[in-house]
Structure formats: C-alpha cells, structure tokens
C-alpha cells in the first residue's frame, strides 16, 4: 500500500506542477493556456537530449532545459496569446494555444521520435524501492517550486507586478506598468516551471512526445479541484487527484482511471465551482 501512496503523491506532484503553470499564465493574461502540459513534456525531452545525446553535465543540461523552457514560454506568449488578446476579447486563445500545442507535439514527434526514450539517472543510486529518486525528485521539485513561487509573488517587486496585473489590468496600465512585458515574464516563468518539473520527473514519465495533452487535462482537473489562482490549491488539487487515481487503479483497475478523474471534475464543478481554495468572485450590481 505504501508504494500505491508514494506513486499517487509523485503523480499528484506532476499534476500540481501543471496546475501551477496554468496559474502563472492565467495571472497576467486570463488565459488558461493549453500549452501547460507541453512545457512539462519539453522539460523531459530536452533534459534527455542535453544529457544523453549532447552529453552535457547533468547540471548544465538542467540549466539549458530551464533556459529553453523560458524561451518556449516567451514564444507561446508572443505567438499564441499576445496577438490574439490584442485583436479579440473572445476566447480565441483557446484555439491559438491548442494550435501552438499541436505544433510543439508534432515538432517533437518529428525530431525526437514517437517512442518513449529513457531519461538519464541524475544521482547514483540503485534502482527500486520507496526511496528511489524517480519518486522523490518530482515531489521535491514541486514543493520547492511552490515555496519559491509564493515568495516571488509576495516578496518581490516583479511578483507584485504579476499580482497587480492579475487583479486589474486596466488599473495596472493606468499606473504605467508595462503589461505586455509583465505578461511575457509570467509566460517565461511558466515555461521555466513546466520544464523544471518535467526534467525532475523525467525518470518517472520517460521522455515522451505524447505526454502533453494528458497532463494538460489532468493539470486542469487539479486546478479545478484546488481553485484557480492559488498555489496551495494547485498543490492540494494535484495531490488529491494523484492519490485518487492511484487508489482507483489499485481497487478498480486501470480501465476506470480516467473516468474517475473526470467524474471528480464534474462533481467538484457542480458542488464548488471555485475549487477548494478559490474565492467566489463577487459581481458588482
């Protein structure tokens, strides 16, 4: 049973990280970017590429992955979000980020291949057991990211700019805040977070091109459980979803895994639309 719990927590950490990516992009643009799970996938693929194929030292490969993740985030903001927000107040970003996600997946499939590939062992350790790094690296990385994000948003000027833009974009513009630059920075940070956790979880997920959509969906469910905009909510939502998935598979088999997670989403949206940690938005009348 311990292995089921540990596996559920590690899986939950992955979902939490994708939920945090959603939060970051939503904060400054009100866009729930479909690319969230793809930044994670890119972290695994590029990490494997830099270390296994380009033969970089793991730490150099890690840093290169973060830089690439940030650049990907900037590209998403510039190509799929900025232009769409400038030209329309409809939810066309759903289509543009979906299109960008498909492009990312196809490029990875054509260049990296469609078969999963190994992610290198990062620390010397024998395989197997509950202390295996493949479980603890993603868990540790997500906890660290969550703590850093909270510090960043509460204690730094740039973090406060994120919050200001998130609270009221028009007021932020009136105050002279460069909204476009802040939004680009938040997407770069989202890309970095996704690629960092994708790198950390690579041994668990393998470097595999097809992970993106599955993580985008489950990250969204974690976000809906925890509540949009809350780091604690993303952590809790991901953890609950991971554990629920692990227990559902343990007791009922893999055939019901997805039905149970999407069923949970529907129930939660009906019972508590704002999520566990979300705040119900009041509307001025």
């Amino acid at each position, binding site marked *: 049973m311990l292995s089921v719990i540990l596996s559920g927590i590690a899986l939950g950490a*992955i979902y939490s990280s994708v939920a945090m990516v959603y939060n970051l992009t939503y904060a400054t643009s009100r866009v729930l970017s479909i690319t969230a799970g793809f930044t994670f996938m890119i972290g695994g693929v590029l990490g494997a590429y830099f270390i296994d194929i380009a033969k970089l030292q793991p730490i150099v490969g890690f840093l290169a992955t973060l830089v690439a993740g940030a650049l990907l985030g900037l590209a998403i903001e510039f190509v799929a979000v900025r232009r769409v927000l400038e030209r329309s107040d409809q939810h066309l970003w759903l289509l543009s980020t979906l299109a960008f996600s498909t492009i990312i997946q196809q490029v990875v499939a054509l260049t990296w291949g469609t*078969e999963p590939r190994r992610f290198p062992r990062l620390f010397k350790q024998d*395989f*197997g057991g509950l202390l295996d790094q493949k479980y603890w690296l993603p868990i540790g990385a997500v906890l660290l990211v969550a703590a850093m994000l909270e510090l960043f948003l509460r204690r730094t000027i740039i973090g406060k700019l994120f919050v200001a833009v998130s609270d009221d974009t028009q007021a932020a513009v009136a105050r002279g805040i460069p909204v476009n630059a802040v939004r680009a920075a938040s997407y770069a940070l989202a890309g970095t977070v996704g690629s960092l956790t994708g790198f950390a979880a690579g041994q668990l997920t*393998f470097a595999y091109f097809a992970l993106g959509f599955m993580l985008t969906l489950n990250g969204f469910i974690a976000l809906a459980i925890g509540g949009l905009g809350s780091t604690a909510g993303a952590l809790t939502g991901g953890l609950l979803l991971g554990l629920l998935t692990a227990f559902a598979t343990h007791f009922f088999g893999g*055939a019901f895994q997805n039905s149970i997670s999407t069923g949970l989403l529907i129930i939660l949206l009906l019972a508590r639309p704002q999520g566990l940690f979300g705040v119900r938005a009041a509307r001025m009348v």
Partner: protein
Amino acid sequence: MKDIDRKGLTISRRAVTAAAFAMPFVPAKGRAASAEPVKIGWLPSLTGALATAAIGFDHGVRFGVEEANKAGGIDGRPIELVSRDTGSDPTNAVNLAQQLVFTGKVNFVAGPVNSGESLATVPIIARAHIPNLVTGAVEELIDPVKYPLAFRVVNTTTQWISVANDYGIKQLGKHKIAIVGDTTGYGTSSAKRAVEMVKAMGAEVVYTVLIDPNKTDLTDEISKARDAGSEAVMVWTAASGLAARLLNTRGDLGWNVPIIGHPVLGAPSIQQLLNKPSYWDNTITIGYQSMSFGPDGKLPEHTQKLIDAIRPQLGSGPIQFNFWWIALGYDVVQVISHAVRTAKSTDPADIRKVLNNTKDFPGVFAQYTWTETNHNGVPDSSMAANLANSFKDGCYKLAPR
C-alpha cells in the same frame, strides 16, 4: 504531412517514368495489353503515436514498388503508389481511405498499418469494392462474407496469443498465469481473448489487469501478480513505454518470472528504456520463423537477401527496428503483383478469385494461403517464440525448445 505525401507522389512518378523507359526491354510476352498503371493506395501512419512500425512498413512497400518498377512493372504495367499519412488517427484514416477509393480510383488499398485505424476503414473500402490488403491483427477485420475483398497479410491476435500460451504453458510448464493488457481497444480485447485461451488450455489465470499505457509506476500491479502466485506473466500491449516499465518493475522487485507476449517486448526501443540490460533476460517475444536466426546463426535465405538489398537505403549499418515490418510491407507489393499477374487484370472480381485460390505464395515474411472461407493468409507454422534480448539486425534467436 504534406511533405511526406508529396514525397510519396514524387517517388511514384519517378518510378512510373523509370518503368515506362524499362518497358521496351521487357519481353513482349510479359507485357499486358495496357500500360495503365496499377494504382496502390497506401495508408501508413507516418506521424503520430503509431509511427514507428508504420515507417518500417513504408520502407518495405516503397522498396517493393521501386524494385517492381525497375523490373518493368507488373507485366509491363508500372505501379503507382499513392501514399497518405493517417497521422495515427482513425478519423484521418477514414477520410483518406474514402479519398483513395472514390476520387483516387486506386486498384488496391494496403493498410492502414494498425488495427484501430483498420477497423474504421475496412468497411468503407469493402463498400467501394476495392481489394484491401489488411495489415492489422485483430480478428474482426476479416470476414469473407462481409468483406469479400479484404485479405489479411499479417497474423491474427489469436495466433500471437496462441504461440505465447503454447510456449509458457506447454514448453515452460507454467500453469498459473498473470495476464496484463493495456486500456486501449487492442489491449482490452487481446487480454480478454488471452484469458479465454489460457483457461481453454487448462491453466489458471491467477491475476489479470488492464493498465493505462502512460501509467508511470507499475509496482502495485506487478506486486499483485507476484502475490497471486503467478508463474508467468503474459503481456498484451503495443506500447513500448508500458512494456519497458513492466520489465523494469519486475527487475526492481527482483522477481525472476518469465514475461511472454506481444512483439513490442523485443522492440529495440525497449532496450534503452531498461534500468539494467539484464532486465531483458527471461523475456519471450512472439515473432516469426522467417525473422529468426536458425541454430547455425543464419537467417532464412529470402530474409537475408532482402536485408542485403535494402540495407543501403537504411543507412548501411545494423538494422535498428523490427525487420518483419519491412518484410511485410515488401510482401504487400509482391502479393499485389502476384494477383494482377495471375488475373491478368485489376478487376476486383478477378483479383478476389486469384487470392481465394492462392496457396503457399512465397513471401519473405510468410508463405501466404487464402481460401474462399479463410482470408487470414499467414499460417500458424510461420509463428515463433523468440528471445527478446537477442535482437540483431531486426531479427531474433528462437527461444529454446
């Protein structure tokens, strides 16, 4: 995708031109009355999740077409290959199959490569009365009454399961079996069929489970299989990630139980996903006699000949994917050539008559036999149990008997 399609058409045009130039050198007796091309519609999934095998098939088909056209085509009729990438998506496959049979006016359709797409396209191609060479393994794809022009050139799922059961139960003497499938349509139906067949052989199924192909940790499932007293684990999934995780978990738990099953267990992509090379030991992959090294370390003559001929096109080094994919693609073209040559026509009724009466047609992958009532062309004698860790040049050693 468009590039691949364009590439496909370019090659076929070039080949058609080459065949036209070669025609004067073909004996007059061999020339058909008309030099109208034989159009083969080909539906590989060159991109998407199921691309790896399809790319192998595609090499074989293209090589077969190129070789036939260099030799003057089929009785003087050049082969025109009309290739369309399905992107591993059954919806795309349906649209492209309709395009090939209704506007492309092809004489044959080969593929799609996998069963999921074929389940969607076989009825459409049958309704258009176009001969269809089926390369998917699930049983439902073939029915001589419903689909009289569909002929299978690969084994069935039942044949794979049958060889695995035979090796595990009869040869290894294991009677408590765990059966693992994935949650795809293929995995679910294969696991169900495997349970029935194991029970029919008098063995006991002590544990059965369906697993999401992307599940990251299988400790729970493998521990349950072990605790249930399994003496062998039969695996029915085409997902290499899942297969590798099963082998890794067995290794990490130090459980030396034989794992037997789907050819993916021996795929070279598995090797680099293993935590340790030794985790591939005691693993039996189901394969083919034609792709197995004999006791003398040699492959069958036809297989070696094709490997030698196609190797330069694959980069001249060792072949790094299952060679049966290439051989099967190559055989698709040989079977079509045989049917057109014997029928002296591409009329579907004539083609059906020829294929229904084809016995022991010597391909590289297998010797094919079809009858009026049986359109599954690969005989049981073509199947083999292989050692997964013996992969070399796209082929395997036979498992010890």
